[in-house]
């Protein structure tokens, strides 16, 4: 495999997924990197950067520090900044060079906690996976460390939303629309991981009856909460009336039975292809199938969990293979950055995602939770 892209984009990386997942929670996130990661993340992957004061930094790693294994400089710098700025927690995420030097993120996190009294987490991201991997690590760490273990199940029907970051949902109100869907379905939303809520809200997550996983980034956290609290999870995003009804029923079934649910439709293979993150794409495909009776298959272009996909779906990340898969498609729904590799014979429907094209098409990213019918009118 030559690992080349002649023209398509590179997805946001795992390091940035950590930053995005933790952005609103009052912590300090440090990318252990020489330079460039901070500018990349805050320019292209973080639409909240201008309007929210979140502490995301790089370490400014130098050649000599890397060669000499001078971790003390990093620790001192973090301790100094933490003493000044008093974050609620500290997260250190990796990039390629710390990966090469075998940097021990957990050990450094322990030392930082010892010296500051502030909880610290190490995330051994490599900069070589997509944001899904990094955001998953961060949300999983929240589930393991930041949720009150003594939380009792709430008396009323309640849910958490897991896997919310602007990389998948932008800042177009999709997060609020999902919460509204749950409310209308009779669920009180306890916490949203991690847009629009605080660390204190997340601490109460153990009291929920069910977890709604709205992107692949939330699945690992859901599994931890399932182990810790026995909370079942349901994977999917409400889109369109028909699929939203299916999802609502799955949520209620899960709350009642305690069994995890993967609600979806799977018609025999057709000629509509959706490219993108797995949960978003399978939800959209299911919504299309249930509302229009047209079959849609998914090519997941990020890391994905097999259990969230259907038999006809595939996970492909390299340009040449994606291009081959698209040769027979009649309709392609994807981020505009994929358009140059799509056959001229196919109709291309733009579905931009921050995780793929960053800020370029931000104004065109639809809120499919409440505007699915507008979107579908474009497809058919």
């Amino acid at each position, binding site marked *: 495999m*030559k690992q080349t892209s002649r023209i398509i984009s590179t997805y946001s990386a795992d390091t940035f997924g950590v930053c995005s997942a933790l952005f609103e929670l009052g912590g300090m996130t440090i990318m252990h990197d020489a330079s460039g990661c901070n500018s990349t993340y805050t320019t292209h992957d973080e639409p909240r950067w201008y309007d*929210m004061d979140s*502490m995301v930094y790089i370490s400014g790693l130098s050649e000599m520090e890397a060669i000499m294994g001078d971790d003390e400089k990093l620790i001192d*710098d973090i301790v100094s900044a933490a003493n000044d700025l008093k974050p609620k927690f500290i997260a250190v995420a990796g990039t390629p060079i710390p990966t090469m030097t075998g940097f021990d993120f957990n050990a450094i996190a322990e030392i930082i906690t010892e010296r500051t009294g502030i909880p610290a987490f190490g995330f051994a991201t490599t900069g070589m996976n997509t944001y899904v991997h990094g955001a998953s690590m961060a949300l999983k760490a929240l589930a393991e460390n930041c949720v009150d273990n003594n939380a009792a199940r709430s008396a009323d029907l309640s849910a958490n939303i897991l896997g919310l970051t602007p990389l998948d949902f932008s800042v177009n109100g999709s997060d609020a629309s999902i919460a509204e869907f749950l409310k209308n379905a009779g669920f009180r939303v306890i916490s949203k991981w991690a847009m629009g809520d605080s660390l204190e809200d997340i601490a109460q997550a153990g009291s929920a009856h069910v977890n709604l996983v709205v992107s692949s980034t939330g699945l690992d956290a859901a599994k931890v909460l399932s182990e810790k609290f026995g909370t079942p999870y349901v994977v999917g995003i409400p889109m369109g009336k028909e699929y939203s009804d299916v999802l609502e029923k799955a949520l209620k079934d899960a709350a009642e039975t305690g069994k995890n649910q993967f609600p979806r439709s799977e018609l025999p293979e057709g000629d509509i292809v959706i490219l993108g993150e797995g949960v978003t794409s399978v939800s959209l495909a299911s919504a299309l199938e249930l509302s229009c009776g047209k079959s849609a298959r998914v090519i997941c272009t990020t890391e994905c969990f097999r259990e969230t996909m259907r038999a006809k779906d595939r996970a492909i990340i390299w340009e040449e293979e994606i291009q081959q898969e698209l040769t027979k498609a009649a309709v392609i729904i994807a981020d505009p950055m994929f358009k140059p590799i799509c056959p001229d014979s196919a109709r291309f429907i733009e579905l931009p995602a921050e995780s793929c094209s960053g800020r370029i098409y931000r104004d065109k990213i639809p809120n499919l939770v409440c505007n699915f019918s507008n979107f579908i009118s474009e497809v058919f």
Partner: protein
Amino acid sequence: MLKRVNAPKEVPNIGIPIKDASFPAPFASGLEYASPARGTWNIVHTGMLIPEAHEIFVCAASCLRGVVLTAAELGASHRFSTVEVRENNLLDGDMEDLVIDGVSDIIEKLPKRPPIVLVYTSCVHHFAGCDLDMIYAELANRFPDIDFVDCYMNPIMRKSGLTPDQLMRSRLYKALKPRGIKKGSVAIIGNDLPTDENSDLMQLLRGNNLKIHEITSCENYEQYQEMAESEFYISYYPSAAAGGDMLAKRLGGKHLYVPFSFDYDEIERGLTRISSELDIPAPDFSGKREICEKALKDTLALIGNTPIAIDYTYSPRPLGLAKLLLESGFNVQRVYLDAITGEEKPALQALKENYPELQLYPTVHASMRFLSEKEPTNYLAIGQKAAHFMNTNHFVNVVEGGGMFGYHAVLHTLELMREAYNEEKDMRNLIQIKGMGCGGCI
């Protein structure tokens, strides 16, 4: 409206009076913040200056992400490709194969064969001890019709030897092939933005009917190659100087580094040196200082005591500009910079002696996340970062000197200050555009 996310109750004020500033690093290094001001160029923008060049970056995803989208935002994705380094490549030690096969694969897939390919390797290649010489030899062997240039995205080396910026500016001219030197032919090198036709440099060269080459005006690869006929290579942007020396040594011309400046004596020394080296009549400086002084007075009469902030992205001489304005009676309150260059040492000393309370602020210090003004101020900012930190729409929106040079830099800066005083700009949106002025290089 800015929303606080558990912002600290108190953030230490980290500004310092210039009298206390140490040289060259007035602020302790530490965690680094990135302000939303993005107008300065990066190595993608600069590489695009070579007409018909195709850029191929060989890096990890985290490194590719920013450059891919830089190219996309420029509308230059068709001139940009990537080879993605994965963990298996670090473990298997097949980095050389990855570069050679990846670059070859991309070239074979391009709709049109480019005359030149810029291959950017990264920190991981440096740390893995990758045999870059072998890689480029093999690529040249496979594609003899293409000029390959070794470029680098290795910010980990920014504190060791040439900076990535210096390296990139030197690589812009590496593909130039020796050809006969033409007398009276001059190349201005190393600046991202075209030298202003009204600048003293262009006026001097044009006034003496010299043939002027500048990469920013090359429309095709052949025109680019014609730069190699130059008898003199002139650079005025500090990061260009190292590359200019390499170029002259290789092609046989003479490199003149004549620094950008706001100091009248230094301006005249530079232009006089150029005329002397090129053996053309010395420029007539009579009346120039008086014109500048009048413009300073007129601008001061308009702007009055309005507080002014300057940052280092506006020009290579933030302290030099502060000195000029303060000596003319302007109310310069702050200068934003993270380091002080050797060229600024005289201005630093003069400011320490005469304006010791002038405040210096860093731009990347962790506390700067919380030290931008939350409400709009009445500052007049010179530079994007100063505009952001002071939260003002009255700002001069120029990066990297904007192609100014000589007395023209003084006069044009004052003109832009008057304009900024009189008219508001959409600061929030303007400063977030990457690579200001690069749209024309595609």
